[in-house]
């Protein structure tokens, strides 16, 4: 047996393995994944100092503690094994589309938007983490994130909708037309103070 050392890209699963007497890696590989999402991790033997002593990130001496952490390689250096993370063709297409849409934003901007929604104005990073820590303190009964949510709204791209069915349309030979109305909030169109949390009611 050996330590499974190295750098790996692992999937994030949206379901938990069935409860059996013995749970092993084989129970995970066929679970449903969160599309596109992954986590990068590294496994290595413990760090040692110049004298061969084990050192820890918990060392009270900050200089020694910093020596115990090896900076992560850039993802673009292809340092992470993807043995356990095999993307589908659709996911690779989503990567390309997201890159074109340029929708990713600084985390701080999103956190400020989330905090300000209930009227909490925070700018300091530590205060925001405290706010989130309080909100996420009770983790025993969390519901799953909405994985049907497709994307944030980008005004330059617009949107489309599909009509799947008409219910109660008994006159099958008639021609039907469907009127829909979207009530867009103004915030996505503003150059300044654009809300990242805007929702589009559709009727």
């Amino acid at each position: 047996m050996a330590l499974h050392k190295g750098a790996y890209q692992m999937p994030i699963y949206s379901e938990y393995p069935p409860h059996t007497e013995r749970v092993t890696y084989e129970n995970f590989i066929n679970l449903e994944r969160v599309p596109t999402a992954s986590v990068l991790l590294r496994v290595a033997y413990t760090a040692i100092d110049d004298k061969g002593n084990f050192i820890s990130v918990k060392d009270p001496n900050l200089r020694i503690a910093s020596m115990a952490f090896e900076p992560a390689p850039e993802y673009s250096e292809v340092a992470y094994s993807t043995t356990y993370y095999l993307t589908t063709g659709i996911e690779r297409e989503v990567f390309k589309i997201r890159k074109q849409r340029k929708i990713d934003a600084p985390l701080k901007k999103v956190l400020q938007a989330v905090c300000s929604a209930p009227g909490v104005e925070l700018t300091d990073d530590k205060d925001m983490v405290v706010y989130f820590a309080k909100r996420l303190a009770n983790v025993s009964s969390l519901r799953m994130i909405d994985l049907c949510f497709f994307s944030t709204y980008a005004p330059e791209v617009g949107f489309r909708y599909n009509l799947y069915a008409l219910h109660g349309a008994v006159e099958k030979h008639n021609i039907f037309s469907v009127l829909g109305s979207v009530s867009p909030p103004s915030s996505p169109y503003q150059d300044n103070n654009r809300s990242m949390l805007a929702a589009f009611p559709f009727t």
Partner: protein
Amino acid sequence: MVRHLPENVSAVKIIAKVINNKLYDILHPITMWPKIEESTYMHQTYHAKLELRGIEVDLSAMLHMTFMTIETTTLKEKLIGFSFFPLFIDSDTRMPVI
């Protein structure tokens, strides 16, 4: 680092622990938060290190991570999912110990 997260996440809290194949905790959970200045909401960086030292580690040990967030569309606390990593491999087969 977590990459290519769904578009309705905010800060992602990770609870990491080490479990054995009976799902018992070998190492108590630790909590990780992203480095806000270095992260985007879809790619979050942690610089966190979990150390196993001075404890008896089962060969079936696995790293177990739980990911959770405040969903930006509903502003509710939500679970994103789980990840697992087998910490030992069979030296001959190079496959995870099961």
